[in-house]
């Protein structure tokens, strides 16, 4: 089964088409690096896949069903532009809250385990408002992976992470791919995104300019895709 399927998807903001005639099929277990300049439509596409926004036209299926289906949402992890954490709650309270929203057994144990995994075990009871930007981003990543989703949608997950945290996140992504999860990763940081990716999609002004398996040449020259498909500079 394909993890993600888009058929002739359009999205309009007023008269402006943010996504145009998008056809995309992502197999289960793939790690898709979703690339594109600012305004290319990456966030819009991720929001539609997450069921946070309706497509204007076309069909969207995640794990074979409508992404707004509750059963599908339970199998998805989403990290958007915001960290989606409550500043007035502690790190562990935030994770326990989301563990309960996802109906997990042993919400506390799971939260504790993920805090350790992203290196925030010592700050479990600190309020999120006291965290640095990088710590908040790591906690947000833990929230997205907490319920072991089959499909993970990550919008700019490397933002504000230092080199050690980038390494931790890349390790998580590699583990997730090994475990058979499907990942869609939107970012401007080409090298970080291409390293764990199995597939690459490039959006140019709402159109899918390129989609294919990630090659060794892409890793060696990450800017090449932009040059070849008309968005150099």
């Amino acid at each position, binding site marked *: *089964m394909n993890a993600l399927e888009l058929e002739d998807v359009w999205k309009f903001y007023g008269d402006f088409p943010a996504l145009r005639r998008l056809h995309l099929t992502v*197999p*289960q*277990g793939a790690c898709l690096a979703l690339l594109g300049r600012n305004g290319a439509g990456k966030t819009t596409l991720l*929001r539609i896949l*997450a*069921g*946070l*926004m*309706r497509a204007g036209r076309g069909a969207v299926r995640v794990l074979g069903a409508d992404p*707004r289906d*509750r*059963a599908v*949402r*339970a*199998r*998805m992890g*989403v990290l*958007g*532009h*915001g*960290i*989606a*954490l*409550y*500043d*007035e*709650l502690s790190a562990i*309270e935030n994770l326990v*809250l*989301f563990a*309960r*929203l*996802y*109906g*997990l*057994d042993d919400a506390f144990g799971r939260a504790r385990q993920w805090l350790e995994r992203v290196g925030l075990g010592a700050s479990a009871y600190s309020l999120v408002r006291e965290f640095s930007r990088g710590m908040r981003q790591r906690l947000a990543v833990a*929230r997205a992976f907490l*319920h*072991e989703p*089959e499909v993970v949608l990550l919008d700019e997950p490397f933002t504000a992470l230092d080199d050690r945290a980038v390494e931790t996140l890349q390790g998580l992504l590699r583990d997730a791919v090994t*475990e*058979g*999860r499907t990942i869609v990763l939107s970012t401007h940081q080409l090298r970080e995104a291409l390293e764990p990716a199995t597939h690459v999609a490039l959006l140019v002004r709402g159109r899918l300019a390129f989609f294919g398996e990630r090659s060794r040449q892409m890793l060696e020259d990450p800017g090449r895709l932009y040059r070849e498909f008309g968005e150099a500079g």
Partner: protein
Amino acid sequence: MAQAEARVGARRKSSLAVPGWWRGALVVAGKDLRSELRTKDALNASLAFSVVILLLFSFAFDPTVEETRALAGGLLWLVFAFAGALILNRSFARELANDCLDALVASPVSPAALYLGKVAANWVLLMVVQLASLVVFGVFYNAAWTRRLGALVGVVALGTWALSVVGTLFSALTVNLRLRELMLPLLVYPVLIPALLGAIQLTGPLAMGEAPGAGTEVWLRLLVGFDVIFTALALALSEAALVA
């Protein structure tokens, strides 16, 4: 790929389930109450507003017992409604910081359960403000409101549910507007008129410790009917209100 599917599928069966409707609502309500009790932003503002209005009105007009009897219901519900707007405005605005609303909507909790959880949390916070206001009212207006405490709390609870149900729905609809603090009362109060009428009529005598007069049953039916109809309507509209 088939192996990957099997691995993820097997692990999921052991640990994850779509949370029940009521459980989802309770988790959301608990989160909202915990957040508010930790910051007390809306609660303090709402309490201060109620107390100040009741005190100012008492000092400005120094009403006699007869005047208080005539004004009690209207005065209390005006205070409840305006003070309530401060709590209702915060309900979804709280989710804007860090894009928390996206994470709630992306979770498997149904939009109706998410909405109901917020209504329940708002109802609890509003009831705290209304009961504190009644204490202030009793002291400064010399009203024996505790004599009919059960009936009074029942009526305030029904009226507050109406305020919470309608206010929470409009709080969701106006959350992304720049003038949401202004828009919320403008949209909520006209819709609330029937419930407010019923609540004012029933609260007036009860707040003075007296038995409600003739026609009580009609106002009570109006209030209960409003609560039932608008709860059902708001639950049906919750997905449209929460998903763009």
